[in-house]
């Protein structure tokens, strides 16, 4: 009997050891959730001082009705439409609504809102874990932790809390970047496919992947052919997600590019233009709509220059080139949008910025950046709760 008990306890200890190996990851996951709750809670108390009648339901309401959230919920419940008022919702990529639908129907008794929020919260935690792992490959633990904090207190972080694609896209992107660094090409292919089913920017992951592969092969000199294998072909899975989306367009609306037609129409007015035109327009809008300038236009202009400066600094500090290339391509792609109003939100997906942050040697500079980011995060979260145009 005693022997059986000992064996049982030993087995339990082994299990505990396994869990201990993931202790840090669990902590980061919990940190992500706790920070979400804290930031939203503090922002809500500030909001409540202004509006004493406000209840906690406001947070839920903002998370499920702000921005594109109702569109994702509609898609999860009703699916894409071939005609009618909602046919333009084909501009949204399918992965997130499909995940909401599956989770809501299988586990949450058709509570679509809760499913959307749960997916976002869990994926943000996963994103933070992979960011930590990615940074730990090149930097010290303290620096990596600081960057994770910066990521979790990015001024527009509230979009990872509600029914938005930010959380899942970040999780897929950061995980893909991590496996790109580890040269695990099968996982990169699968994650890239999922990312390109989540958002158009997902397809850009193929660039750092190919860059990393080519540099790796170039480093092998004349023996490079020996290092080619079948698993590397999996990288070409990455754009497949986008082709699936085109197919979906065709099946639903008989035109592979019908999403472009809808994007160029109201309320999105999207077009593709070189960034000089777009930023000139942003400045004009900032001058015309002074208040919106502080939420949208000035933020976008500043972030663009900060990003380019950061990438140049990253080159100087010898940050991994594949990551900087991804950052450059991602930034360029975002700023080609002719009617950009969510630039600041999109730049949360520019993960190389957080990597470059870790490369800053001066501790005081890092602390100042982190503090300013946290302060802005709180400010914008309060404004988000107020229903201001935080997009």
């Amino acid at each position, binding site marked *: 009997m005693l022997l059986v008990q000992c064996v049982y306890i030993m087995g339990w200890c082994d299990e505990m050891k396994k869990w201990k190996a993931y202790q840090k990851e669990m902590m980061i996951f919990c940190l992500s959730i706790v920070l979400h709750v804290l930031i939203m809670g503090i922002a809500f108390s500030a909001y409540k001082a202004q509006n004493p009648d406000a209840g906690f339901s406001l947070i839920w309401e903002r998370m499920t009705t702000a921005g594109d959230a109702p569109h994702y919920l509609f898609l999860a419940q009703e699916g894409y439409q071939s005609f009618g008022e909602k046919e333009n919702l084909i501009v949204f990529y399918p992965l997130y609504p499909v995940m909401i639908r599956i989770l809501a129907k299988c586990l949450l008794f058709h509570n679509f809102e809760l499913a959307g929020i749960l997916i976002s919260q869990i994926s943000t935690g996963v994103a933070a874990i992979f960011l930590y792992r990615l940074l730990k490959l090149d930097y010290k633990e303290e620096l990596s932790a600081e960057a994770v904090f910066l990521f979790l207190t990015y001024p527009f972080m509230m979009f990872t809390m509600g029914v938005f694609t930010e959380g899942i896209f970040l999780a897929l992107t950061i995980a893909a970047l991590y496996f790109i660094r580890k040269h695990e090409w099968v996982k990169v292919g699968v994650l890239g496919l999922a990312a390109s089913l989540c958002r158009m920017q997902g397809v850009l992951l193929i660039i750092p992947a190919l860059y990393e592969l080519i540099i790796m092969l170039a480093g092998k000199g004349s023996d490079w052919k020996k290092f080619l294998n079948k698993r590397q072909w999996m990288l070409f899975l990455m754009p497949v997600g986008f082709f699936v989306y085109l197919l979906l367009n065709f099946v639903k609306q008989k035109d592979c590019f019908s999403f472009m037609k809808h994007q160029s129409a109201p309320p999105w007015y999207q077009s593709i233009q070189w960034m000089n035109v777009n930023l*000139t327009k942003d400045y004009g809008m900032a001058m015309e709509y002074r208040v919106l300038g502080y939420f949208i236009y000035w933020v976008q202009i500043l972030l663009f220059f900060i990003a380019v400066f950061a990438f140049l600094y990253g080159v100087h500090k010898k940050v991994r*080139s594949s990551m900087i290339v991804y950052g450059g391509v991602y930034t360029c792609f975002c700023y080609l949008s002719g009617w950009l109003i969510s630039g600041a939100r999109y730049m949360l997906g520019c993960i190389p910025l957080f990597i470059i942050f870790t490369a800053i040697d001066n501790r005081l500079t890092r602390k100042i950046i982190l503090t300013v980011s946290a302060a802005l995060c709180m400010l914008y979260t309060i404004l988000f709760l107020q229903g201001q145009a935080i997009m």
Partner: protein
Amino acid sequence: MGNTIGESAGFAMLLLIWILFLNMLKELNLISTERMALIRKVSLYLLGAGLIYLVLGGFFYNISIDQASIFQYDVVWGYGNYAQMMGQLESGIRNGNGFFSMIYLLTARGIGTLLFKQYISAAFYTSFFFAIAFGVRLYYLFLKAFGSQSAQNLLFLVFVCPFSYKLFLPSPASMVCCLAVFAFSSIHIKLPKINLKVSHWSYYFFLIILTSTNIMLYYKEMLLRK
């Protein structure tokens, strides 16, 4: 101001692309680290010189008409026949004359099409590209013949000499210079190793005379359009 911000963004992105391109060449072992660092340094200096010329152009115009702002976008961006031709191209009118003009306009047009029909900006980018290529190649020629210190000094002289501002404005000047220097270096004339010894006095005297003449011409051209 808005246009200045926009154009700065375009230049910043092109700078990033250029730096990443050089970095990639180094990582693929196509150029050595030292060579890459040298090209990067020279090209950055030339880019800086070009941007200073553009700002100066607007500034000259502004102080002449009693305006306080530093940069006058419309004057610089709309300056010269080539900018006007590109502007017409944006409105759908095609033109161009002469062999070099044609090549220049075709290049700028190609880049402009890639940049979603931003033809005037593309003309500036084309001029900058050829000017930087010209400067880097010329630097290597000087380096071979006169050594590092003299090469730097000579390159500096070239980029402040009269009419050098034209290298960075929409015109085929930079392209012609670039092609000439590449042609010269490709015919493999062995330059004799010259120990160029010019006193500081003479060098700075030349530098000041050339810069003053250059600025006088630029001012005249920007203000009087001739």
